[in-house]
């Protein structure tokens, strides 16, 4: 009797084990659909620009990683499919160069999702075909939040888009001028002003004297205006003593620097691109004699900025969102270290830039959304993107999660930025960054690497 029960039990266990094993090997899963095809992701990158090349490289790195793991699971096809990157070359990513390539990618290549875009001007035009054809577009550049807020512009504004549904396909995975001006203004108030007060025995009621030198375009003027707004709204002890603009085509900035020098500032906030910012700092210190503290913004987080600036950049300031040239025994976020090392390994030692990091994350955000949507149906992918809730990756987020809901329904993220001080290593002949602000970041308890110091030869503004 016992033997019989034991025998039956053994048979049941064997059958159950076999069933589990077969289930485990997907024997009972539906066969992959005949409709299964590769996912086409359009990478919007101006290949005539360094930023565009960075975007393309970073996207290719992420896609190769995903494809090496078998691809993206698409539920409705019951299979994993590979990603096929479609390069949408917007040449210089200027305002006149983007709409054509994006249209071709949508109409001819039939892309499922678009990722990329560097300049605001280029993206504002390049996003129109995507809005019209309802193609999800994760914009990983463009520092003006206009790219997601065109529906809220005044009715007579030519940039306004009335297509609310079309605009809902736009997602902005990038820091904006507001994000980084916030960090810069608070750094000046929290770190630079106390340093000046103690070093030069200034009265604590004395406001920090700030000059803003900016490109004469939407981005530069935006930084200038938003900085003044933040100072006023947050009641910061900062006085903007001079603002000066320069044409984007300018090659020398001496007249503006003379004007700024005459206003006796404590610090100069530069809203420029890599090459012009480096030139401004060099001309200011070496040629005009404006021995001040210069603050560059995150677009300058690029190897060429460090090279162009050289020793002149010692102790100058760079606002950033990803420290690709992090100096430390362990990376502040392990995934940043992995990304930088993989990038360098794949691209012959090239150090990644800033916009590529956004793009790398955006590819994984797309994978996540498609897997949750279970389909490549654009509307469903859009819905899935809208409900994205992933752990932060390369960019640091306020709540350590990637979400596209800021409470204002604009499909924007909540990133955190930080301040690096550039240190010249004369032995190595290299300029390297060191984080000086803030002390900690979400999920990173000890982030700050050194205390802020004034550059040698620094001359403060008038008392």
């Amino acid at each position, binding site marked *: 009797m016992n033997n019989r029960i034991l025998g039956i039990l053994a048979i049941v266990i064997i059958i159950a084990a076999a069933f589990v094993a077969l289930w485990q090997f997907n024997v009972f899963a539906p066969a992959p659909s005949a409709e299964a095809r590769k996912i086409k992701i359009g990478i919007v990158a101006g*290949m*005539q*620009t*360094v930023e*565009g*090349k960075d975007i393309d490289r970073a996207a290719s790195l992420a896609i190769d990683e995903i494809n090496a793991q078998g691809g993206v699971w698409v539920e409705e096809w019951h299979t994993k499919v590979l990603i096929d990157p479609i390069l949408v070359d917007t040449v*210089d990513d200027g305002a006149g160069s983007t709409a054509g390539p994006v249209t071709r990618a949508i109409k001819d290549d039939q892309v499922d999702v678009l990722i990329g875009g560097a300049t605001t001007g280029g993206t504002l035009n390049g996003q129109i075909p995507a809005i019209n054809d309802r193609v999800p577009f994760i914009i990983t550049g463009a520092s003006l939040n206009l790219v997601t807020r065109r529906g809220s512009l005044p009715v007579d504004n030519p940039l306004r888009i009335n297509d609310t549904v079309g605009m809902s396909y736009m997602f902005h995975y990038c820091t904006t001028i507001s994000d980084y001006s916030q960090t810069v203004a608070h750094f000046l108030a929290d770190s630079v002003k106390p340093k000046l007060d103690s070093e030069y025995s200034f009265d604590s009621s004395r406001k920090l004297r700030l000059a803003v030198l900016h490109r*004469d375009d939407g981005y530069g003027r935006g930084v200038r205006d938003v900085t003044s707004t933040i100072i006023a709204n947050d009641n910061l002890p900062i006085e903007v003593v001079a603002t*000066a*603009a*320069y*044409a984007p*085509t*300018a*090659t*020398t900035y*001496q*007249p*503006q620097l*003379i*004007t700024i020098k*005459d*206003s006796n500032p404590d610090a100069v906030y530069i809203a420029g691109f*890599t*090459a012009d910012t*480096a*030139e401004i700092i*060099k001309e200011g210190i*070496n*040629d*005009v*004699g404006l021995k001040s503290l210069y603050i560059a913004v995150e677009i300058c987080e690029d190897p*060429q900025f460090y*090279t*162009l600036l*050289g020793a*002149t950049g010692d102790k100058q300031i760079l606002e950033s969102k990803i420290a690709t040239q992090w100096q430390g025994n362990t990376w502040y976020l392990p995934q940043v270290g992995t990304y930088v090392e993989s990038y360098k390994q794949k691209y012959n030692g090239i150090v990644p830039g800033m916009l590529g990091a956004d793009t790398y994350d955006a590819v994984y955000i797309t994978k996540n959304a498609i897997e949750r949507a279970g389909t490549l149906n654009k509307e469903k992918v859009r819905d899935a993107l809208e409900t994205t809730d992933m752990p932060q990756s390369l960019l640091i987020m306020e709540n350590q999660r990637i979400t596209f809901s800021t409470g204002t329904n604009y499909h924007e993220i909540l990133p955190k930025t930080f301040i690096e001080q550039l240190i010249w290593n004369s032995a190595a002949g290299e300029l390297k960054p060191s984080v000086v602000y803030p002390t900690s970041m979400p999920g990173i308890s000890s982030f700050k690497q050194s205390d802020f110091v004034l550059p040698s030869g620094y001359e403060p503004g008038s008392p």
Partner: protein
Amino acid sequence: MITPAGLAEAVLWGVANGCIYILLATGLNVIFGVMKLVNFAHGQLLMAGAFIAYETTKLTGLNPYLSILVSMGSVALIGIALEKFAFRRVRGTEKLNEIFISLGLIYLFENLATLLWEPNYNIQIESPLAELNLTIGGVLIDYDRLLAMVIVVVILVALVLLTKKTKIGLAMRATSQKSEASMLMGINIGKVYIFTFAVGAALAGAAGALYGILFNFNPLIGALPTIKAFAIIILGGLGSIPGAVIGGLLYGIAENTAVYLLGGIWQDAIAFALLIVVLIIRPTGLFGEKGD
């Protein structure tokens, strides 16, 4: 706040910047004066000059100011090749052919440079004088710009001596006045054209090397200097070397002081307004003569 010292500095820097435009415009003018050829790719020769000087300095450790000579020689050779294999082929045909060849050369040069170097990756020639400057009566200027002015003066003096005191210079002047008559007098105008293009290109090469010492540059920098050089030769008078010198100085000063007095957004507007005013008052430019 506008101060006399600030204004003087803006003017002085305007002169220094103008010097680079003078070299470029003079090269363009020499070619136009003798060959009646409008080369829209002249700014790309400046770009080539900047890269040649940069690579020479980097690879050999040569002083950047000596690399100007290498740049001049190399760009002169490029000029000879252009004249021989491109422009000569369409000489005597419709002017439009020359124009389209020069427009095509812009893309050829830019794409070639983009293949050799990163697209808009900016670099600068490291000058040993980079951090040195001089104060004269409260006016500050750096040694690099002072030296650039001196070099431009030396090159222009050499050019004047070449055209006034040498046989080939005489042939150039004769060809510029009446090419057919010059030919009848036994001048080999084919050789004169090659030499003229080489001289014009060498001047662009020198301008490029100086540009690379003073500013950062990339493969796409050529377009704007070309436009400015054209504005200068129109301002000074087509074909006139003194016109290019005065035009270049006026343009540089107007550009820089406009920024100082009125703000950065006026940089190009004031300089081109000056051009329009001069053309209204004197349609042939400051030193131009009425054409045939």
